[in-house]
């Protein structure tokens, strides 16, 4: 479980942040002594450090000096600074000037600051992890590039089609998505008995076409049926932590379709 170490001038802030961090499976320990903080930083090797601006008497130069000491003890630990919400614009700009360091972030203290700090901590942890990984560009070089036929001129996913009728078959969708046929019927807003009787019925083709479009995008992006199923079953940040499969069952296939289309088009979301 990741550990956060906090320099908290009055030990009040830590108590307000701790429950949110705990629900994100992050531990928090705090102190109001700078030297104890630096000692723990060296000994406990926390994953992220928090500080309050108040601890430095609201002086940027004191903050900078302390950051230098933190970097000396641990050059790569991400740091979050908590600032009271009523700081002036001039003060904010002074703080922004030290944000050049990418593992440093500033959060202002307001009603929902605990959730904001938890969110930013998760991002900093992710950033710290990714900066230890090889560059994505290098990874892509290692990947083999598979030449494909222009799928737009053919059936999007031939495996989903009935070989005799040529139509998309709900049974094959059920197989590829690894969901029971009655769940596919739910996605199609059709009766299970109807879908069971004629899984490639012409009346089902429009909605089955959406599912095929989703499958095609996923096979492109995830590279395999296993990857397709993993993505469909994983809670998704872009979907409010719902799984894509949940949305399909709610009859909101177009949301999943648009999300995948944006990724294929590289449109920042």
């Amino acid at each position, binding site marked *: 479980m990741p550990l956060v170490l906090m320099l908290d001038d009055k030990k009040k802030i830590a108590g307000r942040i701790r429950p949110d961090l705990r629900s994100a499976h992050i531990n928090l320990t705090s102190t109001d002594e700078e030297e104890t903080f630096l000692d723990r930083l060296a000994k406990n090797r926390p994953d992220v450090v928090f500080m309050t601006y108040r601890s430095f008497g609201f002086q940027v130069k004191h903050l900078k000096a302390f950051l230098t000491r933190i970097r000396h003890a641990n050059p790569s630990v991400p740091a979050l600074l908590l600032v009271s919400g009523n700081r002036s*614009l001039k003060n904010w700009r002074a703080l922004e000037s030290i944000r050049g360091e990418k593992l440093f972030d500033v959060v202002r203290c307001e009603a929902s600051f605990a959730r904001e700090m938890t969110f930013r901590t998760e991002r900093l942890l992710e950033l710290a992890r990714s900066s230890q990984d090889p560059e994505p560009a290098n990874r892509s070089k290692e990947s083999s590039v*598979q030449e494909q036929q*222009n799928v737009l001129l053919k059936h999007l996913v031939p495996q989903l089609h009935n070989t005799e009728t040529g139509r998309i078959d709900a049974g094959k969708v059920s197989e590829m998505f690894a969901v029971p046929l009655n769940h596919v019927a739910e996605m199609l807003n059709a009766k299970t008995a109807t879908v069971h009787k004629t899984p490639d019925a012409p009346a089902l083709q429009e909605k089955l076409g959406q599912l095929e479009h989703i499958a095609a995008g996923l096979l492109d992006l995830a*590279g395999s049926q296993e990857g397709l199923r993993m*993505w469909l079953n994983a809670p998704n940040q872009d979907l409010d932590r719902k799984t894509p499969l949940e*949305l399909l069952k709610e009859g909101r296939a177009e949301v999943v379709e648009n999300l995948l289309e944006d990724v294929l*088009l590289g449109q*920042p979301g």
Partner: protein
Amino acid sequence: MLDEDGLAIALTRIPIVSSNGSLYRCVDLKYLSAPYSPPRPLYSLGAPATGARFTPLGGPPSLYMAEDHATALAEATLTIATASSMPPKVVFSAKASLDVILDLTQNYVQQMLETSLRELSGSWRLSNPTGPLPPTQLLGKAVFDSGRYSAIRYPSTKRPGGNCLVIFTGRLKPPSFVEVYDPDGNLKGRIP
């Protein structure tokens, strides 16, 4: 996030920033091939057709790009990608000179708009198309309607530390421009 009226006032007070440099996007090759040829790498009508983070459904033409190559690649990859092989993708860059940007990566700007990184990175896709706009689309609409800005700079949700821009192409006036960089001339596009 401030309400519509509050945003309209705040947006007249926030300092603008300008930027000169390169922007990036990573696109599946098939979208740059037939039947989409000639390719239109700076196509900006896709976002209003389906909605996007700062573009409501039916909103203004908007071009979304990343500020660096790695962020462009992250935005074009599934978060749990397991692919050992993948179809070809094209990363292209565009030279951009933008003089009126709202910079949401700055904390003081977030403070003036009464928003947070969490809200700016929140999910917008599940909002009801006939209900109230999600906060980021409300902001995007206010920014466009203000007529003051041609672009918004915002933190990437896919790559912490990376930033993206949405450019309201209808608001780009010379000397501002965006132009695809391709010395071989395979990809072309310039706005305006």
